[in-house]
Structure formats: C-alpha cells, structure tokens
C-alpha cells in the first residue's frame, strides 16, 4: 500500500523523462488507497449462493482463493468464449489503433495507462491468447500472451473495478468493440472466485431478500411515499393518495429505489407522484417490484436475470396492461436490452398505449415497458400538461446524458424536449461531452462507494470540467439527469469540482412547473425552498 507521505524533495527532483524500462506486463499492480472498493462480505456472498463466500480484503496479500482458482477462472473463460460470440470476437479483433485510448474518463482524469480501454481489455486478452490460441500457447510473450498468476489476477481485478461500463470508448472504436461487455465477463469470472465488491454484493443481497438495493421493506416504502405526499401537500395544498400492490391497475410503476431514499432523488419521486395524480393515471406502485435498478447485472448474467424477474412476475400478479419506468440509468440498459430475453416474453400484457394521448409506444411493443421521459414528452407534445416554466426561472439548467439511457437506448431528445418545456433557461454542455459522447459520472456499475472517493473524483473530472464551462459561460446552477446513481454521485462530484451547481432529476423540474387543478399559489419548490419573487403571504 502506498504511503501518502513517502516522497522527499530530493527524490522528486530526480526527473527521468525516459519511458519506463519495463513493459506493461512486467509492471506489477500497486493497490492504491482511495481507488479500490472493499471486498464483498461473506454473509452477502453466501446469501446469494455465490462461490467462495468468506470475508476478504483486496488490500490483503492472501485473497483466500480456492486452491484450483486458475482452473475455475480458465474454465469460466472457456465457457463464456463458447457461449458469447461477442466475447470471443472482442478477444480476437482489436488492432490496437488507440481510438479508444483517450476516451475513458478514468484515463483522462487519472492518466493510468491501464485505464486505457485498449489496455484494460489487453489485460484479459493476454490470458486469452496464452490459453485459448495456438500462437499464444507456442510463443508466449512473443505473441503477447502471459500466464495467469496471482499478480495478474489482482491486476485484472483492480482495473476491471475501475471501469463503469459506460461504453463511451465503444462509440469511438472502429470495430465497435464494447469494453463494457469485456468488463462484464471479467467481473463474472471474478465472481466465480468470490471476488465481488461489497458495494455491489450488499445491494444485490438486499435486492434478492426484499426486492430493492437499499433494503427498504414494504412498510418503509409506503411511509417514504406518504412522507413525499406530505411535502407535496405543503407545496401545492393537494393531498395525493397513491396505491400500492393494487390488482387491476392499468399500469405498474417501477422506479429506482434510490428515488425513495436519498435527496435529490426523492424530489424526483415527488415529481412522479404529482404528474400521475394530475393525469388521474390508473397506476400502482409495488413494494415487491420496488427496484428497477439491478446491481445483479454488475455481478453476472444469471444474477441480473434473477433480480430482474420480479418486474414481470409482479406485472402478471397484479394483472396490469403495461409498465411505466422511472428515471434510472443502468435499469434501462437492462430493461431495454436484456429483460425481454431473460424473463420474457411478456405476452400477458398489452402494447403500451398512453391513456391520456392514445399514443401507442411501438418501441416498447415487446418489453411492454415505457420510459417516463418518453411518456411525459408525449404528454407535452399533445398539450396535455399545463406548465409554468417560470417557476424554474431561478435555475439555469444543463443536461447530463446519463450513459445508459443515452448510449444503450438512444434516449437523447425526449428528456431535452421535456426540460425545455419546463425550464426557460437551458444551456447545453460542449458537443463532445454530451449525447452519445457523454462523460460518465465516474461512479457507475457499483463504484459509487465511499472508500474509492479519489477514483470517483478523478473519473468524474471530465464531466465536471464541462459543467464548469457552462457555469462560467452561462451561470448554470443546476444539472438535471435521468439516472438515480447520477443524482447521488454527481452531487458529490459537484461538491468537489463545481460547488455551486446542484443536481436534479427531470421530473423534479416537471413537478415544479406543473400547474395542478385546485392547487394553491406556489411559493415553494419541491425542496421546500421559497421560490424567488413568490414569497408566502403571511
């Protein structure tokens, strides 16, 4: 472990501008404080029936691995090379052109060459070549192959938990190699050896036990929502009484549990509640399908499938026609690209049709699940909402394209359309930092822990730097987004890099602007902060 106070001025003055004499294969990994996450607790691995359940620490010399760990790892790799053509392809076809090299936020922010996507993949490719190609078996190093030693395993682990699977690099790869998929497989292999991180394993165990990452039990979920309703009543004078687990509702609403749990996500949940009430939507919350997010997806394909199963199961149990989903990032990658094949076909439901506008969501014909940004954009397009964007006039807003909704499902214009309808002051960040090229928050895929805070700050710097630019140029003081992890982690990121910029969800701003039937004059926003120029008349 590197000491924080080791260097002397004399040592620092010895400047060597030559490249390192050793190649990357011979440069052993150094586990740096504030960069890696704690190892998973044995009780959580055991609860999930994951192998090699025991308490362990990545900082320890001994990782308490099974004796035949190499065989387990290589057998796992062989199985996945056979099962996933994409994995074999990505192991074979990279020509190391370097197009991806400077696109990773961790590399841009910290400079560690092993965080270049090409080299991060090469860490695993070298194993692939050594054990699964003829040239690698015969020529070893000359064929860029290397043995799977314990040091190599640790190096792989260290860097595969420094990838947020944001897929920015894949946008620039001429072959379309998806580093996220390589990281996903890498993490699956670690899980065969009991090498998950606690920040993933804990939420997954919670989710498996009670249905959501945060571990909210049914009575806590209902009281959270009721608490939001109290606040909404304070703001609007209107009492909302949402239903839970109601059979026969037309729509099941599934949100990330983070929105029920921590600010500023909670204000977004208030926005959902206000919108649905105003529409008179026939919908229900569920205390069972109480999590759209899926940290199982960061563990293994099977774990992702297992945690996702509750959404269709609950839809079937309640007999809803279709599902509406809240603002979450990786939740939507899972719902959009995996849920249908994992746990479908959802043939017991109908193609989603908005009961307000009659719009048929053909894009959700198969999954039967609609993103709330699409739903709200459709409402606004058809003039179904009365909005007063001036209530957000004190906010100069920019938009952060969360990685998964933007790159995994192309949800780029709908949220912008909504945002521009509910705010008068909207400013885009620079072109190469938004839309498909958006920068990650630096804390996704379960890396939003506390112990790796410096990694998070480094990885989030490219995003924060673009925010700083619009703050300086346009006085931006609010960044809005549609991802629960973003709402939690961008808050921390802004506190470090651009302290005067706040974070909100899209539907918090919708809730502010929404003119509700029978509401009192608004003097507070959803944070219960007085609206400028609209002070309460005592």
């Amino acid at each position, binding site marked *: 472990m590197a000491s924080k106070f080791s260097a002397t001025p004399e040592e620092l003055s010895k400047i060597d501008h030559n490249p390192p004499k050793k190649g990357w294969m011979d440069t052993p990994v150094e586990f740096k404080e504030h960069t890696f996450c704690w190892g998973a607790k044995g009780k959580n691995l055991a609860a999930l029936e994951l192998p090699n359940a025991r308490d362990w620490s990545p900082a320890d010399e001994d990782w308490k691995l099974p004796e035949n760990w190499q065989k387990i790892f290589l057998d796992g790799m062989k199985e996945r090379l056979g099962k996933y053509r994409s994995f074999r392809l990505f192991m074979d076809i990279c020509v190391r052109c370097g197009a991806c090299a400077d696109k990773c936020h961790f590399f841009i922010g910290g400079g560690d060459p092993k965080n270049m996507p090409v080299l991060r993949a090469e860490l695993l490719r070298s194993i692939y070549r050594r054990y699964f190609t003829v040239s690698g078996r015969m020529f070893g190093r000359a064929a860029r192959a290397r043995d799977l030693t314990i040091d190599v395993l640790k190096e792989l682990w260290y860097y595969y938990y420094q990838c947020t699977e944001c897929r920015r690099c894949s946008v620039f790869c001429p072959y379309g190699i998806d580093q996220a998929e390589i990281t996903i497989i890498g993490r699956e292999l670690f899980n065969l050896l009991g090498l998950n991180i606690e920040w993933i394993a804990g939420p997954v165990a919670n989710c498996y036990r009670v249905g959501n990452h945060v571990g909210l039990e049914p009575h806590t979920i209902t*009281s959270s929502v009721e608490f939001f309703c109290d606040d909404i009543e304070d703001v609007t004078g209107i009492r909302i009484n949402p239903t839970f687990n109601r059979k026969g509702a037309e729509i099941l609403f599934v949100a990330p549990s983070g929105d029920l*749990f921590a600010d500023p996500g909670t204000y977004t949940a208030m926005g959902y509640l206000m919108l649905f009430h105003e529409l008179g939507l026939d919908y229900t919350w569920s205390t069972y399908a109480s999590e759209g997010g899926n940290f199982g997806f960061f563990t293994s394909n099977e774990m992702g499938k297992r945690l996702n199963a509750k959404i269709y199961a609950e839809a079937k149990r309640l007999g809803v026609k279709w599902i509406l989903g809240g603002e979450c990032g990786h939740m939507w990658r899972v719902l959009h690209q995996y849920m249908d094949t994992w746990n479908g076909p959802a043939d017991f439901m109908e193609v989603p049709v908005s009961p307000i506008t009659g719009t048929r969501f053909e894009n959700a014909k198969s999954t039967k699940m609609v993103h709330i940004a699409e739903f709200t954009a459709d409402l606004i397009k058809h003039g179904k909402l009365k909005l007063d964007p001036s209530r957000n006039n004190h906010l100069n807003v920019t938009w952060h394209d969360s990685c998964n909704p933007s790159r995994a499902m192309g949800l780029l214009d709908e949220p912008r359309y909504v945002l521009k309808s509910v705010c008068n002051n909207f400013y885009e960040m620079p072109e190469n930092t938004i839309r498909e090229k958006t920068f990650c928050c630096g804390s996704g895929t379960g890396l939003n822990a506390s112990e790796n805070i410096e990694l998070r700050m480094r990885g989030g710097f490219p995003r924060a730097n673009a925010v700083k630019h619009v703050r300086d140029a346009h006085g931006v003081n609010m960044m809005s987004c549609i991802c629960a992890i973003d709402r939690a982690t961008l808050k921390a990121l802004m506190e470090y890099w651009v302290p005067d910029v706040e974070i909100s969800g899209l539907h918090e701003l919708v809730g502010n602007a929404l003119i509700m039937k029978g509401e009192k004059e608004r003097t507070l926003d959803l944070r219960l902060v007085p609206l400028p120029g609209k002070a309460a008349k005592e």
Partner: protein
Amino acid sequence: MARPTNTNAFSDSAVVPGNGNNCGQSACHAPEAQKEGAAAGTALGRILRDKKKAILTKWLDAIMVSFPSGNSTHFRIKGDQFTNPTGSTISSGLEAIFEGLLSSPFKAKNEELLDGIVRIMAVQDLAPSQSLSFVFSLKRIIREELGAEQADRQLSQQLTDLESAIDGLTLSAFDIFMKCRERIYEIKANEARRANFRLLQMADRIDSVNGRRTAPKGNKLTIKEER
C-alpha cells in the same frame, strides 16, 4: 480610476498596498510581493519573458514527474479543454500563473488558476509533497535558465523578490490543497448523511432543515426505529 500606490524595489508599476483581498475565501498569508506581478516590468521580467517557452517546458516536466511513471503521458499531449481536461488545465494554468508573475497586477485570477491545478493534484493519490513540489521547482528552473545572468546585482535583488512571490504562491497552494482534502472528507460525510437523512427524518429522529417540520403529519408512519 487612480489607485493609491507605493514603491517597491521590485516592481515599477502601481500596486494596491496591503488590501489582502485577492485570495478568494481562503485566509491567505502570501507575502505581499506575490500580489503585484512579481517581475512586472523589470529587467528580470523582460529576460524571463524571452525564456518563457523553455521555463514552461521544464515546469510542465516538473509537475508531470509527480505522477506515477507512465501516468502523465496523456497529460502532456496537446488536446482541447474537453478531450484532455487534466492536461489542458495544468498546462494552461502553469502558463497563466507564470504570466501572472511577470505582469501586474498579480490578482485573484491566479488563485483560481492555482486552484484548478491543485484541485486535480489533490485527488491523484499522491503525497502532499509530491502534489505541490511543482511550485517550488519553479525557483530552480528560473535560476537554471538565467545561468550566469543571475550574478548581475540588480537582477539578483529582483530575483529574490520573485522567489518570495513564488514562496507566496506555494503557501496559497498549501491552503488550497488542504481545503481540497477537507472537502473530500466532507463529501464522504455528506454522502453518509444524505443516505440516512430521509429515514431519520421519517422516524422523527432529527430536526428539519430548510424549514422542514420536525414531526410528520398524521399518524401514518409505522416505523419508529432507527434503520
């Protein structure tokens, strides 16, 4: 508008005496010389401006060597503010700070530029000595570049004043570094607080913020235990 002036052996330009308000919110103890554009308009300033390119190249090298081997390669590559924000912030910041030392007045803008660099260095998992050594190294680099010229008596005095200004810069850098590190721990505490705030609030265990009430309406809540 005319400003009160005083004379300084080091600077031939007008300065604001002792206003001490150019360090942002930090309590700045930097020597006064720092605040004026330390080599503004002097013979030393003119010489250093001629050698600016060489000095900045060496200064950039000095900061890059603070990073672990190989990590700085990307930061040296010319990129724009958004494709290479770390490298761009550092190299443009160093140049602007150097310009600030040569110009007058040496104002709060330099605090901001220094803040941009130090804020990056404070989260690179480096020792404080590694993070901030680049400021000290400017003195050595300038003397190296001056070579025999520094023996000139007039330059020697001016050089002493400039080095005093760089010392002031160093102190400011320490202020900023400490604030950054404190901020990191505040952020960790804030995250933990946010994670528990709503539940504690629901359980009526904490007072409100932002004018929130201290007790929930009605008797709907069923949990009273701290979770």
